[in-house]
């Protein structure tokens, strides 16, 4: 691999690695207490029996 690509790889993972892990943790720690897929049209809050399982 050329030096440029090796350096790019290192830089990308040094920056992207922590960032993507932080985004993942942020998304998980901020999950709604009653998760609903309100981002998907046509789906509203569901009953506890089916909560989050479709």
């Amino acid at each position, binding site marked *: 691999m050329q030096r440029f690509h090796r350096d790019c790889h290192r830089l990308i993972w040094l920056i992207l690695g922590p960032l993507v892990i932080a985004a993942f943790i942020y998304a998980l720690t901020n999950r709604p207490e009653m998760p609903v897929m309100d981002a998907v*049209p046509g789906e509203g809050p569901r009953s506890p029996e089916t909560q989050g399982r479709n």
Partner: protein
Amino acid sequence: MSVSYKAVGWNAFKKRYDLILVGAIVLFLAAFVGVGSAIFPFVTFEILLIKAFAAAGIVVLHFILMIGPMARLDRRWLPLLYNRRHLGVAMFLLGFIHALLAVMTYHAFGTENMILSIFTQDAGTTMGSFPFQAFGFVALLILFVMAATSHDFWLANLTAPVWKTLHMLVYVAYVALVIHVAFGILQAETSPVYVVFMGLGLSAVVGLHLAAGWKQRDLDQELAGGPAEDGYVAVCAVEDLVENEPHGACLGGERLAVLLYEENKISVVSGVCQHQNGPLAEGKFVFGCLTCPWHGYQYKPDDGSSPEPFTERIPTFNVKVADGTVWVDPKPNPAGTRVEPAAI
């Protein structure tokens, strides 16, 4: 390595590789749908399919991203690297089917354009309405470009450095997909299974890349000591060389492959394969040629050219041996230039 255009340069290894790949994907999809419908009988078949194709795609993508650093850390993973581009195309197809099913299920029956609604229906600022689908769309576009150019035709026409840079977009696609998953399904999914597997996969991908990068950093250390009066630089001691085993060195920011062969000959060529910039110093010496560990491209050590009928060539370096040390002129010769091997 192919001298003329072929859609796929099939060989026994590639056929076996693809057979295992397709078999594993079909098994995964069947198991996902089978187990899913048994545990959650109220979930519709199309929803299970959407999730199954997404899960399969994410698993394959993690596998693709882990192969590279694993092969750099341990040579035993190299056979998986050989046909990685077929994994990439398979991953794109899985993602495409997932996207197609999701759009047909969630966006096909509104008044708005199906594609447009991906960007408008879930736009918002709260966690529950984070536009996760837009991230999935962007990732799929990147994966399409990569799958479409995953061929030596494009590699040859774009040149290895440009092609390599283009394919580093896979990391952008990966980040977009992690966000797509974390802010999409994981916001709605109460089961810890997805969270655990996604977390493990993410940690493995990031950890392996950092570990491999750290190992490679050691190999990039410049040689100690400046050039001699004639401009030559000492790259290693003769006793460091093992016959027919390439030895790596870093000179002027680029890597070299130093080779002792035919008992007493020493040649030095660029350590960067012309095909995909693979690490030639980590390859083997096979049938009188330095062989790239990634895809088997070969170069003769004295002139850096591939054996006929192949036309690939790499730069060579003038070399001499004095006082038990291998000295190299840091100025590379044009690719394919024959250099008399140094004798010991």
